[in-house]
């Protein structure tokens, strides 16, 4: 009996495991219901579009935010607070009523007002078990729009977390995700309002107007490069083919991303996509683990070209600069598609809503990723993996939105040969609506406007256009950072990169050269302009870099100067009607700048950009070692990106900041007060070292911000790249300290190879020293201020870049020679170290810095410096003065010729359609779409075969047992052996077997 019973126990355990598995399986089926319930969640406060540049916040007196451990009703919250306050005898308090739609729902916080003995009351509140913390209420001011910051609504939307596993998606996506320059400082990261209403993005963008006109994407071939799509998804009726290019043997989407993307583009049920009748070609190039290889892409691309795909959606971030085969492919075959939509990096502008970049440009030159337009990237509804809808946010969401919109737009055009990447881009750009308060590097030309793009595309004539279409260096904030500092004689020329889009043909060229035509009445002759441009415009586009400088005669003049640049673009004839005659197109680029007299030397600060290197092409680790999830220094250290706050601060203190993009030998040191070098990774030419020494003797001041360089740490931060199948070893530390030590050795200064971090206080300012090194050597008469760290017990000279007062003090010292008392009388001041007994860092053996360096070149043995490059020389364009007045409003001037948006009328359509309508529970997802869109045949049986089968099986088993039980009942009942307690005890303590 006993052995048997223990056996059954074992079996029971196994069965139990099986039951658990079964439950998990069941849970899977029920997720759809769960989805519906949260889709009905309403929070109207979220749907408003608000953007802002800056926040300031102040503490509201007597008001506190009490945060709870969970979500409670208003009644429960008030009970908690009153019980907590009762113990400390505070009676003079009240709950500040919040009248907003969220007040009907449980909340996790309460705002209270306490008028007396604040401290004690607050302390007692925190003792309550249900209260998490108490913080002072803050009032938040925005520079553009003020809104009550109370309703911090929590919206249950599914966020698309970027948990990319592979090297490619991670790197591609991270180009501006997370590491974007605008949130390098974390300034905007604290307040984030999320949208609640998952939106039907197609309706929001008014795609339904085009649907009513009969355009549904028919006849357009769309390729989706993603994680695949399952065979009989109920949302799609026109999946032409599915191909797999990965090493997984399946065509199905095991992740849901590919389905979502395809859904946003072409779903026809529940959550409507843009172009339900488009021909879908599904390319599975990502595995379910989000892994992808360049070679898969290359082959898939070739196939897409062969299939004459019109619109291709590639849901990865910007290209990996290192990956030449990939970049070439995208560039070379841009000509083969009508539109190649390569996207997208998300960016949360002040947390309210996401804006996604659509960058088609392959970065180069200035190195900035520039969006063309922005569109919705958060809370977009798309198809779920097995049907139903889901709402996603993030990087890869805006890409299908644009791909879908473009597909729909292509199908509206009668003459399909008119549509090419350039004309599509021109239409999208010209129709985009500008967002207030966001600069052009963040919003491009503005928000996607589908209907206006439709109008433009349908009256489009092949032509060239410019992006941006005007240069107004006085316009803030759109032209930030250009607008933040007026130009003056003797300053570094301002360079603006303009893209020339050529809708006339794949290739084109600029006839003669661009003409500079200053307006004499607007003092246009006070500026000088130089051009550099691509000799051949290919594919579909080219660049035009304009350098603007002040003429000598305006050295002490103040005012606004205007003019324009004329360029004529020609392309070979494309169609028969104009037999052999070249097509030409002339575009005008207005320019407006503010000129001031040259500021005194002490006010001018030069930022050294030449000696900064960034990730592509080499591995330069981030300065802050704590940021492990993205170890590469993507943005470099630029005064307008990572160091934007420093720049703004310096400007507000009245300093003029110029950027040096050439070697030290190329600037006139007598014009500048201070040279600022921050975390330089580059080496120095011997000529530069000599010149800098002379400059410093002649009164130039030098501020050097250094970072760590420690060979053992550098070996530690190496990583293995799955994509290239090789180890990546950093080429420098956070800064190239050996090179800096060479530069500074003349003054008997040196940095050590230590690596420190910590918080410290100096002159009553709290600061954080994120990572850095210590000073090893310093001249006898210098000032060294030392800080000791608890954990390290070493001395170092401090610098944290985000403590501006320190920078101020230093600049005050370097510019005017006045030592601020906070520095000179610091109690931490001590004797400068002599450098004895301290190891100086050596350059790491076998680093590949010379591969990327502008200074070094490979040599047998150690790399040697190259010969010094010539300083950039600009040849100023010969002005052709015009005696005419400039247009008053630059940005409203016609963006595309022969298209006047005000005159093109839209066909009549119902205007009162609600833009966003949440689904109520139980309502089917079907929209009242006019006939023609909803097809007659649905694949409704998909996903239902398995439940039916399971149900049948269950019925059979049930029937079997019913019969069994009946049998048992009909037989005379046998008394079951009862398990008795003694037996059980015996079971627990089995008798010892006697030993032999």
């Amino acid at each position, binding site marked *: 009996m006993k052995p048997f019973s223990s056996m059954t126990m074992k079996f029971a355990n196994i069965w139990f495991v099986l039951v658990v*598995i079964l439950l998990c399986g069941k849970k899977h089926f029920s997720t759809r219901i769960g989805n519906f319930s949260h889709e009905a969640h309403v929070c109207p406060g979220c749907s408003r579009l608000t953007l802002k540049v800056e926040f300031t916040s102040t503490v509201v007196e007597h008001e506190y935010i009490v945060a709870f451990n969970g979500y409670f009703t208003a009644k429960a919250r008030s009970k908690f607070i009153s019980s907590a306050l009762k113990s400390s005898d505070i009676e003079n308090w009240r709950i500040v009523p919040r009248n907003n739609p969220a007040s009907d729902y449980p909340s996790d916080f309460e705002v209270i007002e306490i008028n007396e003995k604040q401290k004690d009351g607050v302390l007692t509140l925190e003792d309550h078990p249900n209260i998490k913390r108490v913080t002072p209420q803050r009032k938040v001011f925005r520079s553009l729009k003020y809104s009550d910051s109370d309703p911090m609504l929590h919206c249950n939307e599914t966020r698309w977390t970027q948990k990319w596993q592979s090297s490619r998606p991670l790197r591609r996506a991270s180009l501006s995700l997370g590491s974007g320059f605008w949130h390098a400082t974390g300034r905007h990261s604290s307040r984030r309002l999320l949208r609640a209403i998952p939106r039907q993005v197609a309706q929001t963008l008014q795609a339904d107007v085009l649907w009513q006109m009969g355009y549904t994407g028919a006849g357009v071939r769309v390729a989706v490069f993603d994680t695949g799509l399952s065979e009989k998804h109920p949302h799609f009726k026109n999946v032409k083919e599915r191909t797999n290019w990965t090493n997984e043997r399946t065509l199905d989407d095991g992740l849901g991303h590919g389905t979502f993307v395809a859904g946003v583009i072409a779903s026809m049920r529940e959550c409507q996509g843009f172009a339900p009748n488009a021909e879908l070609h599904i390319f599975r190039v990502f595995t379910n683990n989000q892994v992808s290889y360049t*070679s898969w892409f*290359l*082959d898939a691309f070739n196939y897409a*070209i062969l299939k004459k795909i019109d619109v291709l959606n590639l849901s990865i971030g910007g290209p990996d600069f290192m990956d030449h*085969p990939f970049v070439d492919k995208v560039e070379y075959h841009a000509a083969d598609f009508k539109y190649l939509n390569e996207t997208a990096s998300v960016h949360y502008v002040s947390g309210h809503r996401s804006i996604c970049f659509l960058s088609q440009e392959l970065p180069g030159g200035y190195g900035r990723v520039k969006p063309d337009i922005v569109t919705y990237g958060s809370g977009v509804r798309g198809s779920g993996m097995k049907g139903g809808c889901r709402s996603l946010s993030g990087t890869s969401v805006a890409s299908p939105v644009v791909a879908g919109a473009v597909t729909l737009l292509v199908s509206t055009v009668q003459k399909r040969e008119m549509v090419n990447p350039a004309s599509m881009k021109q239409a999208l750009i010209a129709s985009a609506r500008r967002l207030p308060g966001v600069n052009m590097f963040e919003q491009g030309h503005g928000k996607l406007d589908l209907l206006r793009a439709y109008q433009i595309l349908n009256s489009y004539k092949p032509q060239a256009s410019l992006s941006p279409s005007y240069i107004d260096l006085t316009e803030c904030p759109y032209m930030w950072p250009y607008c933040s500092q007026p130009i003056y004689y003797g300053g570094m020329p301002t360079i603006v990169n303009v893209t020339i889009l050529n809708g006339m043909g794949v290739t084109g060229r600029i006839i003669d050269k661009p003409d500079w035509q200053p307006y004499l009445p607007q003092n246009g002759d006070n500026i000088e302009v130089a051009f550099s441009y691509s000799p051949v415009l290919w594919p579909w586009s080219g660049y035009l870099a304009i350098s603007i400088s002040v003429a000598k005669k305006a050295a002490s003049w103040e005012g606004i100067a205007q003019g324009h640049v004329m360029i004529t673009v020609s392309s070979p004839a494309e169609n028969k009607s104009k037999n052999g005659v070249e097509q030409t197109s002339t575009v005008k680029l207005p320019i407006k700048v503010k000129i001031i007299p040259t500021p005194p030397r002490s006010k001018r600060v030069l930022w050294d950009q030449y000696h900064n290197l960034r990730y592509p092409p080499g591995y330069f680790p981030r300065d802050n070692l704590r940021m492990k999830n993205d170890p590469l220094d993507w943005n470099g250290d630029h005064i307008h990106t990572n160091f934007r706050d420093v720049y703004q601060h310096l400007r507000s203190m009245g300093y003029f900041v110029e950027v040096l993009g050439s070697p030290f030998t190329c600037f006139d040191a007598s014009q500048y007060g201070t040279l600022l070098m921050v975390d330089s990774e580059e080496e120095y030419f011997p000529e530069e070292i000599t010149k800098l020494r002379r400059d410093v003797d002649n009164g130039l001041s030098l501020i050097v911000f250094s970072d760590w360089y420690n060979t053992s740490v550098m070996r530690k931060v190496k990583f293995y790249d799955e994509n290239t199948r090789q180890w990546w070893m950093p080429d420098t530390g956070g800064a190239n300290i050996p090179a800096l030590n060479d530069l500074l050795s003349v003054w008997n200064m040196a940095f050590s190879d230590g690596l420190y971090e910590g918080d410290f206080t100096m002159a009553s300012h709290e600061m954080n020293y994120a990572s850095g090194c210590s000073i090893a050597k310093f001249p006898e008469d210098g000032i060294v201020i030392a800080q000791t760290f608890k954990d390290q017990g070493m001395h170092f000279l401090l610098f944290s870049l985000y403590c501006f007062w320190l920078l101020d003090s230093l600049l005050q010292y370097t510019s005017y020679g006045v030592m601020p008392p906070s520095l000179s009388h610091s109690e931490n001041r001590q004797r400068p170290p002599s450098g004895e007994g301290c190891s100086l860092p050596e350059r790491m053996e076998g680093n590949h810095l010379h591969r990327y360096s502008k200074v070094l070149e490979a040599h047998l043995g150690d790399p040697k410096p190259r010969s010094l490059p010539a300083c950039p020389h600009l040849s100023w364009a010969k002005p052709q003065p015009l005696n005419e007045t400039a247009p008053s409003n630059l940005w409203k001037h016609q963006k595309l010729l022969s298209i006047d948006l005000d005159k093109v009328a839209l066909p009549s359509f119902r205007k009162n359609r609600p833009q966003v309508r949440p689904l109520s529970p139980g309502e089917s997802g079907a929209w009242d779409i006019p006939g023609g869109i909803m097809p007659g045949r649905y694949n409704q049986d998909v996903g239902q075969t398995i439940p039916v089968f399971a149900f049948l099986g*269950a019925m059979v*088993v049930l029937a079997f047992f019913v019969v*069994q039980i009946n049998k048992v009942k009909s037989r005379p009942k046998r008394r079951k052996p009862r398990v008795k307690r003694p037996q059980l005890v015996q079971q627990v303590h089995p008798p010892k077997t006697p030993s032999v």
Partner: protein
Amino acid sequence: MVPCGAVLWRRLLRKRWVLGVVFGLSLVYFLSSTFKQEERTVRDRNLLQVQEHEQPILWKEQFSSGNSSHLSNQCRNSVQGKLLITDELGYICERKDLLVNGCCNVNVPSTKLHSCDSCLPNGCCSVYEYCVSCCLQPNKQHLLERFLNRAAMAFQNLFMAVEDRFELCLAKCRTSSQSVQHENTYRDPIAKYCYGEYPPELLPV
């Protein structure tokens, strides 16, 4: 004392119908999951849902290369070239010499027929357009046929979609998974467009 719950639980598990239900549910789960798996393997057999059209490739040009027939007919060409372009007859010319109908102007001296400039003996060229032009040489037909017969599995769906020789040459000359090593560098960064059977020669970095 043994907790009461455990006893009840044990007693419950002894009941035959409980075990039966557990068994039944497990059976259902087992059957349904095997069925699902089976379904998947069946589907995986025809991974690439491309129509297997056994249509032979057109090896001959569709019209004779006489001067007069050119103008009346449209040519397909290699569209994306920056400076050069190759038409379907195998002529390579500068972009400015491209006629309106898409063919190269054969009367311009710089236009060449079936030119293998920049191509290496191994069948790899440094200019895409020359690769296409060279590939269209009539004596390369044997080579291409041999390649098609033993086209690697990865390429099957790619070359299955090809309809004639010009398309085959366009597709063959493009860089593909065969052109790269380590996923992000070309095997041969110079001569990377290959019409031949073999991938580019692997050059040391």
